[in-house]
């Protein structure tokens, strides 16, 4: 069945109307709510992760990298078979998709795009803090961020004392020595160092679980489910930049999606009951060209999809205003267009998780840029 733009609009509008009225902030503040952002670096192909069904033109443009086997999401969209854990969450109404969206960046450079997806700005390299960091600052969340990486990513810069987890293949000095150092920190009134060391001393460094994403996710889930633990976690999955051998069910893009899917699985398992108070969103710098290139890959594009999961998801649904894939519908005649500024999704998520007024986030985190409040449509209050 071929979807046309008007029908797609109608369904989304009806759905949002149906849910209007829910999500009043009266239940706010009961449980600690968490926001997890998984950065998909290299340019995640939304058309590969969530392909449109029954579009002959699309199939023709991607004859060598099309998916032969897919998981079905809706009458209009399929899901890449590597995303089986996402599908399981979808079946429980705890996963959804926002399609045909992008950050406001059309330049097709990884470095500019990655800078902007983290800063939330509209000009590359202009901002020196991240949208998530500014959102946390607005919510008064000092020391509540957790980066699953060694350097602090730009995304959560803007608040002091963030935590991070990225184990090294080695062990800490003995407890006795740590005690001596801790005592010395106290004597010298090194408050920040003392606080940091107390976090370190609670870490179990006697085993090296590795630094692959799923292992890090198990640890993140544990920390996030602690009522006094962090409220924000940031992950990174690399290598989405598939100029060659992108493949279908088993190509390089599939491997990357699988890595994302493994993070979801591990988070679901380790968050336990906290999963219901958590949102897990993806973030990428751009999508990829509709047409495959000469190397059975795709080039840097524009519009893509945001994958959303967690107990705070309102309903499994593919959101968005589908722009179509006819040549005239494409951005610059080659890329899926974006019909929603992805920052609207992130601002809405922060509004939901941090219990902040959307307009304050819009003003203080995104400089009053024109964004849509999607909180009620996408998330549970």
């Amino acid at each position: 069945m071929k979807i046309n733009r008007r029908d797609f609009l109608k369904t989304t509008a009806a759905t949002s109307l149906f849910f209007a009225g829910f999500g009043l902030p009266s239940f706010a503040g009961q449980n600690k709510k968490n926001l997890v952002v998984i950065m998909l670096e290299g340019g995640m192909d939304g058309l590969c992760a969530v392909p449109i069904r029954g579009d002959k033109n699309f199939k023709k443009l991607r004859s060598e990298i099309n998916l032969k086997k897919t998981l079905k999401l809706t009458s209009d969209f399929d899901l890449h078979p590597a995303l089986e854990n996402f599908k399981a969450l979808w079946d429980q109404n705890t996963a959804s998709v926002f399609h045909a969206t992008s950050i406001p960046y059309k330049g097709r450079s990884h470095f500019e795009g990655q800078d902007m997806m983290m800063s939330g700005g509209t000009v590359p390299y202009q901002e020196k803090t991240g949208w998530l960091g500014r959102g946390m600052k607005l919510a008064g969340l000092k020391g509540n961020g957790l980066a699953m990486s060694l350097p602090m990513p730009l995304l959560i810069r803007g608040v002091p004392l963030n935590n991070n987890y990225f184990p090294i293949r080695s062990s800490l000095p003995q407890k006795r020595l740590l005690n001596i150092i801790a005592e010395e920190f106290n004597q010298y009134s090194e408050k920040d160092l003392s606080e940091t060391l107390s976090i370190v001393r609670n870490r179990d460094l006697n085993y090296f679980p590795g630094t692959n994403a799923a292992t890090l996710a198990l640890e993140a889930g544990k920390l996030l489910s602690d009522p006094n633990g962090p409220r924000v976690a940031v992950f990174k999955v690399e290598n989405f930049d598939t100029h060659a051998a992108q493949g279908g069910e088993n190509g390089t893009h599939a491997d990357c999606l699988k890595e994302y899917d493994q993070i979801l699985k591990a988070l679901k398992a380790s968050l336990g009951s906290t999963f219901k108070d958590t949102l897990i969103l993806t973030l990428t710098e751009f999508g990829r060209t509709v047409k495959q290139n000469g190397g059975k890959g795709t080039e840097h594009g524009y519009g893509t999809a945001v994958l959303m999961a967690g107990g705070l998801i309102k309903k499994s649904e593919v959101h968005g205003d589908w722009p179509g894939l006819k040549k005239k519908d494409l951005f610059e005649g080659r890329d899926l267009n974006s019909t929603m500024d992805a920052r609207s999704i992130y601002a809405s998520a922060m509004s939901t998780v941090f219990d902040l007024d959307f307009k304050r986030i819009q003003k203080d985190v995104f400089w009053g840029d024109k964004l849509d409040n999607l909180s009620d449509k996408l998330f549970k209050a």
Partner: protein
Amino acid sequence: MKNFFRKVAFGIGPNEEVPSDPLNWALNQLDDIPNLTWKGRIPSGKEMIEIHARKNQIELKKIREKYKNDKKLLKIGIEKLKNETGQGFWPSLELSIRHTEAIHSTSPVLAKLWFFWSNHFAIVDGSFRTQFYTGPYEREIIRPNLNQSFEKLVYDVTISSAMIHSLNNSDNVGPKSKSAKNKKRTINENHARELLELHTVSPASGYTQEDITQLAYIMTGWRLGWSKSTKDTMPVEFDKDYHQPGKKSVFGKTYKSGKKGLANVIKDLVHHPNCRDFIATKLCRYLITDNPTEEMKRPIIKAFKDSDGFLPEIHKAAIKVAFEYNDQYQKFQNPENWFLQMAKLADFSWPTSSTIMDLYEVGRKPQSAHTQPEHKLYDLGHNPYGSKQPNGFSDFEVDWMSPELLIRRLVFAKDCFELTKSKNNNFKFYKNIVNKNFNKPEKIFNYLEKANKPYEIQILLFNHPEFLRA
């Protein structure tokens, strides 16, 4: 007073005399730029860009085409190409050259300032090409300029291949230029904005979006030369076909069209009062404290003005201020500076010797000794060639205090014991370096007495609050 040797350099090694006049010891290192101390191979930027990076660029395209059906072979092909062009080796060689200057040279103060400017004019790490030319850029563009004027430094950096590529000035095309006639092309403001914001006057100067746009127009035409066979790894040239015609205006001053516009506007930017204030602030922040005071900055600003931005004079003023405030402020050291101070004091076998590094032949897979510097600095969380943003690594203490970064210091102090020399593994050795580098050695001795073994001394000493700061 002895922390001064670490504040402006990397401390006093076990076999070095403590200078009797610390201030003059430091000031005397700032007039001349001696040859690099590294005895091994030092490849030129030209070789790196025009041979290795170019080969990488051209072959990569072929490999992608050849292995388009097989992701495993593609991966192997890319890995093989990496070896054929020495990609995995160069960053470690550059770190060895850099670290030798800090630990084993006779001008460690100059080295510390070299690191400061390299970070001030940071190259964004991302494209594989940075692995070929960030090191040469810091050696050939920044270092020789440290006894020249700030104006010349800014100009040379601005038209360097590394910076032009890093901030996309090749894509900055005048919309009314000849090359935009048939194709829709326009400006890319990245480089222009950073020239104002990060390199010279800072946002405090109050430039407008229009100033950025106008500066971008002035900068159009400065790009990497391009040809089909060599891709864009050619030296920077001014191509007037890409230059926006007509007059431009920045901060209310008019600049004529053409190649000379860039030099003229840079001249005015470096003479702007906010530029002096910004550079003074950053130097004080790097050496003294997160929040420099007006009193601290004043002598540096004055030296900048009086000497017309002559870098040795600016550096001397900054070192004098650091000396003056030495007892009042101790700055938390960034991981690389901390590691180098530990390596110097504990007399580590570091970096890998030039004899071993020179055994590497381009085309082969590097041995672990050849890649150790890069891996170590990556593990430490501070590979100076790995800046992800054009503002470089932070000089604010808070950005270096995270659990994992503290774990790295604890673990590094322990694991780097393997870099010590066995003759040094005794109390006497550590007593000597404490005497030379700490203000109240007795206090540190009492603390170190809690250690049972030499490697425990090392863990305790290098994580002592007085050592973490300088």
